């Protein structure tokens, strides 16, 4: 096994392994934020429903007065 180990690469492979572990972690953090954004946008859309419905109702009422 030792004969198969290219020791001039062991430092690079270690560094590479560290970069990838950190990249995976950071990518997970990013994914969590995207999930938060999805929820925020959803509740915001819901929060606008009442106001929107009121404007539609008002519009219908006003068009009957024309």
């Amino acid at each position, binding site marked *: 096994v030792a004969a198969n180990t290219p020791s001039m690469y062991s430092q690079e492979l270690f560094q590479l*392994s560290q970069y990838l572990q950190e990249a*995976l972690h950071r990518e997970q953090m990013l994914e969590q934020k995207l999930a938060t954004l999805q929820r925020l946008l959803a509740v915001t*859309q819901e929060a606008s429903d009442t106001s*929107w419905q009121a404007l539609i109702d008002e519009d219908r009422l006003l068009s009957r007065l024309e």
Partner: protein
Amino acid sequence: MSCTIEKILTDARTLLDRLRDHDSAAESLIDQSAALHRRVAAMRQAGAAGAEQAHDEA
């Protein structure tokens, strides 16, 4: 050390797969926020139309 290169390849592949999934999730977020924009723009238009009519009748 061959197990290290294998682990590195696996991690790189996992990272790529997750980036694809989350790029797709970001596409959905764009659709969501575009829908929200349409809602807010429609509310602005409906509000302005109502104000205009009230003004005409005053």
